[in-house]
């Protein structure tokens, strides 16, 4: 990989920093443009409920102690960003006793646990279904599984969550419907979160697998006398999973940054819930802090996906290092999409290229 790789990494990190600045600016601006501010909204809601009017005082105090009285908005932004660089977002408006980074520190592990378990479960469901369906393409088994997959895909998460509660809590009395005390609280939200992604991934695995099974090197491996199972796993499955990384990465990121509905439904104190509350109540520090945090998670995941991709596919690894390399007289597949103008392109492009199979023509046939 050498210096070419380090240069690549440096450029990517530089781009992440630029993106973060842009994200923070846009979020801050939008927040200023949004009607109402935290105090207004608190007043309205407290007027309705007649509790929490004392909180407004605390907020004003907390705000002024950090940002000073009557500072212009651009200065607020700068003060916020100055803190943000050192991972100090200041106190939240809504929860004035807590700093935003403390909220993130307690809520993120919860969302991350949920996300990680859901993705693992989704993969455990999707892989066998996808592979099996591909191996029996156009058979009744294939059609049946794809029907179920479409059903799972179409079912919204909150609906399956409600169904799970009905089944496990209301009918079987096996699991508590809400809370965050232990594994018994994990099962239903993880299941509810995994069903949709599992359906998407199964479809993806199937079409990717179908494509790989048609590759000449799979035939060639059979021609060498390879046992069916070995050829399918080592040659077909292994290569068809590489593009999956590009789907799983962003999926994991989006789940990690919180899933408002599921968290609300099961009363899980995850990040999504805080984020939604922050947006609704114009809680500037919490909203800015969580937005920036989400952005970092997303971009780091994307970077990781690209790096993992390079590890899994030696052709891309070679590209990222010493610049683009013509793949001999090779097939159109490899000379396509690489004109060598930009060193990064090898990584990015080939990723895009790999993203295309799920909706390719053969599935329509």
């Amino acid at each position, binding site marked *: 990989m050498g210096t070419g790789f380090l240069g690549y990494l440096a450029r990517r990190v530089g781009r992440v920093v630029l993106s973060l600045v842009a994200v923070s600016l846009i979020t801050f601006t939008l927040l200023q443009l949004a009607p109402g501010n935290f105090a207004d909204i608190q007043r309205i809601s407290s007027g309705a409920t007649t509790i929490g009017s004392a909180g407004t005082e605390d907020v004003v105090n907390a705000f002024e102690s950090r940002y000073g009285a009557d500072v212009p908005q651009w200065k607020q932004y700068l003060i916020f960003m100055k803190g943000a660089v050192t991972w100090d977002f200041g106190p939240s408006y809504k929860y004035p006793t807590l700093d935003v980074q403390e909220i993130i520190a307690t809520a993120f592990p919860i969302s991350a646990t949920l996300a990680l378990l859901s993705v693992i479960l989704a993969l455990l469901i999707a892989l066998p279904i996808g592979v099996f369906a591909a191996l029996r393409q156009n058979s009744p088994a294939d059609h049946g599984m794809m029907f179920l997959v479409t059903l799972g895909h179409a079912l919204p998460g909150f609906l399956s969550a409600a169904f799970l509660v009905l089944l496990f809590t209301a009918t079987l009395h096996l699991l508590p419907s809400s809370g965050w005390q232990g594994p018994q609280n994990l099962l239903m939200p993880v299941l509810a979160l995994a069903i949709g992604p599992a359906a998407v991934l199964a479809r993806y695995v199937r079409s990717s697998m179908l494509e790989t099974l048609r590759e000449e*090197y799979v035939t060639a491996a059979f*021609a060498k006398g390879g046992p069916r199972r070995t050829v399918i796993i080592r040659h077909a499955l292994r290569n068809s999973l590489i593009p999956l990384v590009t789907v799983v990465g962003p999926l994991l990121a989006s789940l990690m940054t919180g899933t408002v509905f599921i968290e609300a439904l099961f009363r899980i104190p995850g990040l999504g819930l805080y984020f939604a509350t922050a947006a609704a109540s114009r809680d500037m520090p919490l909203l800015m802090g969580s937005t920036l945090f989400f952005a970092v998670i997303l971009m780091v995941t994307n970077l990781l996906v690209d790096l993992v991709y390079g590890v899994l596919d030696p052709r891309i690894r070679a590209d990222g290092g010493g610049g683009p390399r013509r793949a001999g007289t090779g097939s159109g597949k490899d000379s396509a999409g690489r004109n060598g103008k930009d060193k990064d392109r090898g990584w990015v492009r080939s990723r895009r290229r790999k993203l295309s199979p799920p909706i390719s023509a053969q599935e329509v046939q």
Partner: protein
Amino acid sequence: MTGPLLSVRDLRTHFVRGKETLRAVQGVSFDVEPGRALAIVGESGSGKTVTARSLLRLLPRTARIANGQAILRVPKRAGASGGHRRGSGSASDAHREVDLLALPERELRRVRGREVGMVFQNAMEAMNPTLTLERQLTEHLLWHGICGKTEARERAVRALGDVGIPEPERRIRTYPFQLSGGMRQRAMIAMAMLTEPALLIADEPTTAVDVTVQRQILDLLVEVKNRGTGIVMITHDLGVARYFCDDVVVMYAGRVVERAPTTALLDEPQHPYSVGLLGSSVELGDRARPLLPIPGSPPDLARLPSGCAFHPRCGRAELPRCQTDQDLVTLTDGRETACWKAVADA
């Protein structure tokens, strides 16, 4: 040697597409002798590749082998681990015959890559892009239980060196895309020959490489042939056949239209299609004579004309005689043709 190495009789392979049946191969027969090369020549769509792949049953799921035999003489092996093939003992005792088309899947697997090697058109596509050469070469030996891991690696390195790949110790650790096209093709041949199969099927092994490399690949295959391996060479290039093959089978629309020793076919083609194929060859044609392309295009297998499938494109066709089927007829000099006019002329 008693009898041919491979004897194919009346091979018929169909593709089922909805309610339609495409007869891609319609009754192909040929023999391959040890140490000799047979070319199967024809345009794309003539069924030559399907014929080759039918032999090892490496066909897409829509394909059915409807009929035929492919009798291969394979050496009797003591067990899966028996490594020595070219041993002592009389030929008839040491061999048994298997029908490749009727063999159970489990036994077929032991024949694939072991008794019959296969070389593909494009090594870039026929080698797994994400596995090193080492992995792909050694797995071949390991699958057939020929030797252990360490020895497999040694053999693989030696095989790469034998086909003229420089620094095989280093190259074996690289991925296929890191080799040049010619080297990749050699590596693929080395891989196929690792197990010393008695028969090698080469499916257009020179089509995807540069002209300068073509010759090297052919020379490599000549070496393989001279070591006693029988070769089935699929090609659309009569130049390749001339350079390398002892006999030629010309296929058109799934049928054999002519079979002859290479020199006889090139000097005096009998079937009008062979004549046309020769006339449209850049390399083999008489330079003083203009190229004569065959008019029209290969027929749609779903809508084949009755009788000789070539007659709509044939300059010598006479209706209605050409609309009735014509089997291969053996001429006095032992060659065979499926054109009644050629038979009448002879």
